[in-house]
């Protein structure tokens, strides 16, 4: 009789101890995910940064589009300078951008006109408020974080981390279709179908000669329209976090496959890459508009930019 209770008691004790130990270690092993979160939060506090970004889209191995950007950002006052270079189907578009003294200035390489848009006071205020509220309300952000953690669930363990001797970390995540949550697999195809749809209507508006000569749509027309059997084949995310816990390098690959209306199979690979440097020591370039050809832009209801038509 005694022996029976002894056996049962020790079974309960041992299994409870093992449960606590493994539970604690399961909590600790999500460190890759936690490290990334911490780096992301820390990188958000940065005052200024230089960003070098690159994106490309391939269809069945053929490069459709590439985009490069160099940006200098001051997140405290909202000032920014930089240029982007887009190429698609042999067509090139270079664009320089500045954000200074409450105005946004855009200029394409193809013309020497500077397009200026006056920032509304409230947008500026909103920007500041947003930037502040994030930092000043840790309670809300902590709740949001808990919800995200819960949604991610056990998939946290997909995130891998290698720590180098200098304290920098390499964090990576690799997912095949089967490893994606079923909800993502169910909704993503529809989202991708919508995203690759060509919008002729907008296209025609954009070609309005008085509009700002920059076609966002020209990118889209290169993309094949997927309509069926769409699935995400692979997702890969990598990040390098430096010793002072800033994200230095971030890259992501997304492989999507599907068929277009004619039944031809496509495999699209989207590659995004961003390098951050000059943490808290970047100063955006400023532009002197004196003696330059300037055109004022107003934003219409759809949020698109249109030239006013009046030269200043």
């Amino acid at each position, binding site marked *: 009789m005694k022996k029976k209770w002894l056996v049962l008691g020790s079974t309960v004790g041992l299994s409870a101890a093992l449960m606590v130990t493994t539970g604690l270690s*399961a909590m600790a092993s999500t460190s890759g995910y936690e490290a990334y979160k911490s780096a992301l939060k820390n990188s958000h506090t940065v005052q200024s940064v230089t960003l070098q970004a690159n994106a490309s889209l391939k269809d069945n191995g053929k490069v459709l589009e590439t985009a490069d950007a160099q940006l200098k950002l001051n997140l405290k006052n909202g000032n920014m300078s930089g240029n982007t270079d887009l190429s698609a189907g042999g067509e090139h578009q270079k664009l320089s951008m500045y954000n200074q003294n409450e105005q946004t200035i855009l200029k394409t390489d193809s013309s020497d006109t500077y397009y200026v848009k006056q920032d509304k006071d409230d947008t500026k205020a909103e920007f500041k408020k947003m930037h502040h509220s994030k930092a000043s309300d840790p309670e809300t952000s902590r709740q949001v974080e808990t919800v995200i953690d819960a949604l991610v669930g056990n998939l946290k363990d997909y995130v891998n981390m290698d720590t180098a001797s200098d304290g920098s970390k390499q964090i990576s995540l690799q997912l095949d279709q089967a490893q994606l949550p079923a909800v993502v697999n169910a909704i993503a195809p529809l989202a*991708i179908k919508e995203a690759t749809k060509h919008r002729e209507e907008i296209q025609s508006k954009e070609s309005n000669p008085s509009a700002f000569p920059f076609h966002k749509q020209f990118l889209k027309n290169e993309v094949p329209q997927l309509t069926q059997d769409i699935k995400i084949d692979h997702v890969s995310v990598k990040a390098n976090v430096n010793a002072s816990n800033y994200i230095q390098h971030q890259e992501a690959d997304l492989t999507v496959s599907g068929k277009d209306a004619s039944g031809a199979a496509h495999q699209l690979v989207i590659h995004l890459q961003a390098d951050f440097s000059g943490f808290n020591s970047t100063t955006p370039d400023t532009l002197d508009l004196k003696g330059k050809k300037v055109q004022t832009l107003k934003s219409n209801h759809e949020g698109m930019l249109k030239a006013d038509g009046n030269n200043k």
Partner: protein
Amino acid sequence: MYKWTASYFNELTLLFYRRKVILIALFSAALPVLIAFALKGLEPLLALLAVGPSFPIEMLSLYTGLWIPLVIMTLTADLFPHEVASRTLKLAFLRPVTRLQVFLSRAAALATSVGGILVILFITTFLCTLFAGTLTGFGEVLSNLKAYAAAFIAMLAVSAVFVFIAQFFKSVSGFVITALVLYAGFKVAPFLLSSFSAFSPLNYTDWHMLWLSSYVRAGTLITGTLFLLASSVLFFSLGYYKFDRTQV
């Protein structure tokens, strides 16, 4: 030894004499086929591939998240509170077996049923991908098999928790309502408290996904397996403690 096998085999046949169990088995086999046809019908609208290579895993997630816990709840209710309510528990106690044997045979019969559902699901979804022509290869099947085995361990832990809870109830409805509320509560709790899920055996229902990736460290998988096995042992032991003290 013959008492163990007799007791286990007896509990298993008793389960299968229930019409309910046969219906559960049939439904478990039919559901993936129905979903496959439904998705096929919605294919132009949703733009997705109805029965893709990940179909067996998506169905598995659906089963481990919802269907199998419901089945475990139903069978546990039948094996414990219902037997108290209908005064049939004494029939088992009057057989020449110990209560430990009765308890473990029932737990084993429950585990066998869960395993049975997983086998049915594996075969059905395998056939679905075979017919849809999206079966990519033997490696895929092997990797799915691993995920199914992992899901079985997670479901074993869920069974242990439900069997433990069942010992506190003398009526089916009381147990089922409590179990449902508790299961829902365990699923919501991580949204309020981050560290909760690390210590809850009911929150490993999507755990099999980790076994599909070659990038997940072996340590993580071993820790998870040990955690689930330890909690199964713990809750079955606690359940047995209560069961052993039952008076009928």
